[in-house]
């Protein structure tokens, strides 16, 4: 009976060709790292399911959006879990898609006949970036609103049509409800539709054109025809080929399961991303991008003022220009890592840059900020009265907004403790009244009376004897 029903279903739904052409086919052996594509597919699945559930409760209207996110996180049954999974699998997608992309550059996965696979992949990469960015904005907390403004400020730099682009994105002359509604439509309809089409196309091309094989990496391949021959030999060979289902699926399924496990663990341990206060344009705020964009933010912080305004427009265009043109620009017959040292160096450089800049941004040593709390005195040390008064003035006059004291506070300007007594009282006083040209410090001339100045100088002088903390 079961066999009969099964046969009926297989016949009437025409499943046999699917099994023959898709599952029970020979493919070249998969490596441990080639499960990244399946992992992305699995993560996308998590995004679609959790996203659909979130859309059932989320309110895309500016006056209730934030409250609906609070409701999902705090009151809805398992809402925190769904939001957490949506957030962490988005983050995982950013990491895995970067790995996936760099791996294709490393092995020359973009070379013929896989240009189509590469190009659809680049479009998908763009889609994932757009999703990661717009998703962040839908929370409609204060970070979201400043995130939108940062994007608008990048767009306004585009020559000629800058202001029109801003109006297009914000949906009118001001940031407001129309902005949120547009972002929502973008995040849940337009980009997902695009992704659906592109994923289907990308996977179809992966099935038909395959992924880069061991044989291709070992010998030069001069034409698409030569590659196809090599590919066929490889997949049919006893030694280097395997059957897609279940062997390949099992291997890449393992990778996907591992990453999903990490996503679930992060959700359970850390929960969904923190919500800040509701979107507003009035309160003081320290906005920050999601961790997956930290490297970019760190890079922007390091740019000299001459380049910075152009960079934010030119850099994304340059990256995607490079990615789109890559298969047409690099047409040498060699693939794999051994014969392409420059590409290996490029990928290593990119990885080092991303990690290094991420760490730089995480430490954020470049941002000054007011702090009412005077710097602490080292344990067991007592300051003379003048210096003690100077310590209070140090905070009152905002010196501690930039200057750390023996490692405490913002680390934007010099820490006097690190000078180890090299600066005389006269020198300090001169500096306070008239900082040298090009130094980012305001002149305090006319703001301090004689006593205050002496006290401040005294404190800065004595700080030089503070033990510098590690």
């Amino acid at each position: 009976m079961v066999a009969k029903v099964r046969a009926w279903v297989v016949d009437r739904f025409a499943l046999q060709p699917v099994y023959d052409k898709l599952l029970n086919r020979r493919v070249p052996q998969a490596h441990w790292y080639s499960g990244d594509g399946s992992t992305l597919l699995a993560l996308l699945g998590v995004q679609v399911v959790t996203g659909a559930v979130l859309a059932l409760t989320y309110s895309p209207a500016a006056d209730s959006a934030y409250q609906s996110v609070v409701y999902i996180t705090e009151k809805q049954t398992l809402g925190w879990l769904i939001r957490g999974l949506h957030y962490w699998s988005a983050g995982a997608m950013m990491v895995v898609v970067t790995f996936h992309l760099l791996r294709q550059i490393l092995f020359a996965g973009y070379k013929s006949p896989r240009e189509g696979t590469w190009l659809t992949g680049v479009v998908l990469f763009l889609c994932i970036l757009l999703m990661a960015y717009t998703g962040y904005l839908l929370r409609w907390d204060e970070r979201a609103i400043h995130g939108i403004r940062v994007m608008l400020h990048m767009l306004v730099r585009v020559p000629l049509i800058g202001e029109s682009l801003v109006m297009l994105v914000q949906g009118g002359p001001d940031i407001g409800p129309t902005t949120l509604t547009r972002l929502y439509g973008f995040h849940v309809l337009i980009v997902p539709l695009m992704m659906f089409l592109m994923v289907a196309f990308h996977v179809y091309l992966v099935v038909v054109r395959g992924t880069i094989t061991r044989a291709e990496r070992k010998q030069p391949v001069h034409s698409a025809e030569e590659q196809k021959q090599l590919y066929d030999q490889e997949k049919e060979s006893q030694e280097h080929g395997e059957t897609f289902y279940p062997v390949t699926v099992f291997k890449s399924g393992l990778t996907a399961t591992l990453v999903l496990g990490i996503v679930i663990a992060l959700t359970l341990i850390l929960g969904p991303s923190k919500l800040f206060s509701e979107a507003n344009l009035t309160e003081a705020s320290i906005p920050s991008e999601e961790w997956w964009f930290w490297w970019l933010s760190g890079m922007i912080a390091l740019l000299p003022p001459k380049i910075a305004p152009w960079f934010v427009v030119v850099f994304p265009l340059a990256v995607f220009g490079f990615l789109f043109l890559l298969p047409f620009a690099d047409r040498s017959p060699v693939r794999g890592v051994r014969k392409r040292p420059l590409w290996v160096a490029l990928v290593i450089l990119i990885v080092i840059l991303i990690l290094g800049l991420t760490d730089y941004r995480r430490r954020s040593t470049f941002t000054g900020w007011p702090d009412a709390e005077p710097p602490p005195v080292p344990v067991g040390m007592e300051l003379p009265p003048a210096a003690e008064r100077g310590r209070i003035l140090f905070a009152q006059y905002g010196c501690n907004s930039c200057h750390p004291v023996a490692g405490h506070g913002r680390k934007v300007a010099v820490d006097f403790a690190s000078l180890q007594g090299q600066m005389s009282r006269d020198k300090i006083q001169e500096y306070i009244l008239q900082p040298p040209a090009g130094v980012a410090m305001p002149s305090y001339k006319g703001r301090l009376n004689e006593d205050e100045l002496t006290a401040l100088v005294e404190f800065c002088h004595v700080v030089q004897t503070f033990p510098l903390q590690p």
Partner: protein
Amino acid sequence: MFDRRKWLSVLIQGGGAALAAVVGIPALLAAISPAWRPRRGEQWRHAGRLEDFPLGTVKPAIVEVGRDDWARSLESKTVYVFRRSEDDVVVYSRNCTDLSCPLVFDAGSECFFCPCHGGIFGKDGKPMAGPPSKPLYRYVNRVREGELEIDLYSLPPMT
């Protein structure tokens, strides 16, 4: 000459494209229409009584923003008012001129700090540190019967 088969395929492709255009072009126009929605004239808003801003100091002020008819969110925003002399007032946008992160004014050092990438501006609005290269945006302002007013539309739409 085209044969029948060729004619049919031209008809199908042309007809299909025409049908798609009939729906697609208006859809596209409607979608991007905010881009050319006019932002004309002036939008004057109260920023507070002039006498509430002490001479020589920078003080935040909250102004109502322009809004759509059905909008009930983000109704106001902070600007910084610098009263340079008896009747010379400068009103700064709170935007950093690099990427428009919200600045905070530090009364101690009399500097504006940007929370994002280390931009610092002086009281005079000039950039002192970090990526910004342009001075702070200034709203056009006027004083009417002791009331300080600013023109929201005197600055670009994202400020």
